[in-house]
């Protein structure tokens, strides 16, 4: 089937792109002034000690050799050892990734579902007050400055009202309690997740709503909608069965395209809420010159984005019968 051939071809392309990103990243990190060792030393250490440290971190080799080692290790799944944790980067990432996935997928799914449903509703009542309210609130949440919003949420719901924990992902009370069941622990995590989820959701759902709305309005102008109406079908069937599936396709593309944007937002959200995820780890690693960790986190994000776009394209092909590769 052509779809698989297409997928395979795209995968090869993605591998190529990924290699380019990998190399560019390596070069950028090596070109950068500043070495990670200087932050680990204090005045009681001699310069020679710093050199020893450099050598032990593998930073004394020629850049070309470092690059080859880097590639070799990468292929064998070894992404190096974090300068600061002293742990394999792969393990740190494996430790943080589930947290990010949990936060990110749930917010994206929630935002997509709510955004699409409300977008459908808004377009259906175009020009009426429902539409105006929905559209405007989507615009407002879509353009609000995320860290600011997150801080306001913390201030209001966590501090003033005390409904939610201020930051973090678990509360020690629950996790230290030997009698806690998995359910109470899950509820505890959910409780911590509400605010970060809310901020990510708020900035994402606007996008979905707006795209769904305009896509739906476009679709409603199509002849087949007129046909459906002429067929005497109820409005609900026309909306849900004829218009929405066609209108939802551009939304799918939006998920792919807005992923980069959401990841930015994700990193900010994780940082503000101290959510122990990849985004926060990347920001920290970057500011502490933890090369291996920063590189690997970014590569992971890049890989996820590239693959997600592939998945979106394939999904598109599956959902839209017109597209055949």
């Amino acid at each position: 089937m052509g779809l698989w051939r297409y997928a395979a071809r795209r995968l090869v392309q993605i591998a190529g792109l990924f290699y380019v990103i990998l190399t560019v990243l390596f070069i950028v990190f090596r070109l950068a002034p500043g070495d990670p060792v200087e932050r680990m030393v204090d005045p009681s250490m001699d310069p020679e000690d710093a050199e020893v440290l450099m050598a032990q971190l593998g930073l004394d080799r020629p850049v070309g050799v470092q690059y080859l080692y880097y590639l070799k290790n990468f292929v064998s799944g070894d992404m190096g050892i974090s300068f600061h944790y002293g742990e394999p980067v792969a393990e740190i990432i494996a430790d943080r990734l589930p947290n990010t996935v949990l936060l990110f997928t749930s917010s994206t799914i929630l935002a997509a579902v709510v955004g699409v449903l409300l977008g459908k509703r808004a377009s259906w009542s175009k020009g009426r007050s429902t539409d105006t309210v929905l559209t405007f609130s989507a615009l407002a949440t879509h353009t609000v400055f995320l860290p600011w919003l997150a801080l306001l949420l913390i201030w209001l719901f966590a501090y003033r009202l005390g409904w939610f924990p201020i930051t973090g992902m678990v509360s020690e009370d629950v996790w230290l309690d030997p009698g806690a069941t998995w359910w109470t622990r899950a509820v505890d995590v959910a409780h911590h997740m509400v605010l970060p989820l809310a901020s990510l959701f708020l900035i994402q759902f606007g996008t979905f709503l707006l795209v769904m709305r305009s896509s739906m309005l476009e679709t409603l102008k199509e002849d087949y909608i007129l046909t459906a109406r002429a067929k005497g079908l109820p409005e609900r069937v026309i909306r849900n069965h004829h218009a929405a599936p066609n209108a939802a396709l551009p939304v799918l593309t939006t998920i792919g395209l807005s992923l980069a944007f959401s990841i930015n937002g994700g990193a900010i959200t994780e940082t503000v809420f101290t959510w122990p995820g990849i985004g926060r780890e990347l920001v920290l690693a970057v500011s502490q010159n933890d090369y291996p960790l920063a590189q690997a986190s970014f590569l992971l994000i890049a890989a996820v984005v590239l693959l997600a776009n592939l998945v979106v394209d394939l999904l598109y092909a599956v959902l839209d019968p017109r597209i055949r590769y």
Partner: protein
Amino acid sequence: MAAILGRVRFAWLVPMVLAVLGTAGPSSHAADLLKVGLPDEPKTLNVFRASGRWSGRVLALMYQPLLVRDPETLELIPWLAAEMPVYDPEAVTYTVRLREANWSDGSPVTAGDVAFTGRVIREFKVPKYYSKWKFVTRIDTPDDRTVVFHLSGPKAVFLSRTLATPIVPAKEWTRAVEAARKKEKPLRSLMNHRPKTLLSSGPFVLKEWRKGAYLYLVRNDRFFGRGQEIAGRTLGPHIDGILLKFFGTSDAAILALKKGTIDMFWWGIQPGYIEDLERDPNIQLYRCERSALYYMGFNLRKPPFDDVAFRRAVATLVDKQFIIRRILQGMGEEMDTVVPPGNQLWCCPDPRTYGKGLGRADRVRAAYRLLKEAGYSWDVPPVNDRGEVVKGRGIRYPDGRPMQPWTILTPPTDYDPLRAMSGTIIQGWLQDLGIPASARPMAFSALLQQVKTRRDFDAFILAYGSLSLDPDYLRSFFHSDNDKPRGWNMSGYVNPEYDRLAEAAASTIDTQERRRLVWQMQRIVAEDVPYLPLYNPTLVEAVRKGRFGGWVKTLGGIGNLWSFCELKPL
């Protein structure tokens, strides 16, 4: 509300949200658990790697050194050692008797552990400790409780720094050390070792580390100090454990403190919060001095800072009081010498100062006078014929060349907004005099490389957050031997007399004599201004009232071993 929710078909969310809300509100299992907020997570608990502040703080509660400092007098006192080491000037040896102490598994802390620690540091050249051990030529253990250190020569830092090294349990590390020896990069292997359990000789022992969330330490019932009187204090610990919670941002931690989620925030509180916290009846603030140095450094290797007159003029222009009052909101102390004022033992009381107490205009006049005497000229002098201060323009060197623009490198705002801002303010003062200076914030690592490795800079603002109490850093900072890439003499200060004093001080065991030398060194530095010390921020820490009592104030704050040993639940 239900109607609205129903309309968007998310009514099923309501019970879930309520369930989530239902768990709100703090509850506590162990009433005597001290909850401490940390701004960030310790990256590692490998004592040989630990370079971050957080790792060090946690490890200090478990691995103990031979000597510690008395919290009040700051004198060295025996800790794991039973009494102060005995020095033999003939053989250049120190003999240390160990106290009766046990690891948390019940096995004794022996001379073997001490020797093991020293030997591993020397063999692997563990960067964090090696410079303090390289002059130890041999370590003997005549019996289980006695250690004899052979030194290559008299070293002033042996007691204060070498013996401050935490002692590591040999049996826990032997296997990792042996494995590391066989590797291509032994040190790297050692530093990447991850201890599964941590044997502790200190007041607490690690119970659980939930990555990204908290570290849970419980009381070590086998702690040697338990019930003992050391430095006039009867030690505990009296609390069941310490829970270290990671917050990531100060805001969150302070909100948590106000809400009562944590009992203490183990980190200096920014001035902006202080007023608010002072009003909070549940919060108690502690102000402590820090052993810190915030300073402006000059590159003496090239103009304009190769001229001592110019450095003095800059020192005159910089109004430290203004920086402290405005940028630090008063939470700091002016520094006239490189040694922090809180370090009473070593801080020189009478260094030369510049423009102290003068107002803005007078400072400009004084600096103008200094520079004019040194032969500098202006297109528009900053002080006009009538003696009024105006905006100066176009300063020229004594040989008539115009001064080229130069930059003050500062850390970036994300790293330390106050230093970045100080740079901007100082830039303004210099420009008023017609000096073409501009502040440039730079990524921290890049800044260090520029200043320390490449030595390609004009001036910079850097800081040491916690300087060791031993003033040996004076030698590191200004000895001409250290004027090399990666060396600590970043200014490129060369003064044979200073070098001689520094060397003498390093090998002087007698404290009185050493103090005399160290003061003399500080006077020279104040005279020549290779560094311009700016301020020493006051450390303000906050705890909740009514939960625990017995915090011990010392240089560097209340979050210290003594506090955690003495705290009692109220």
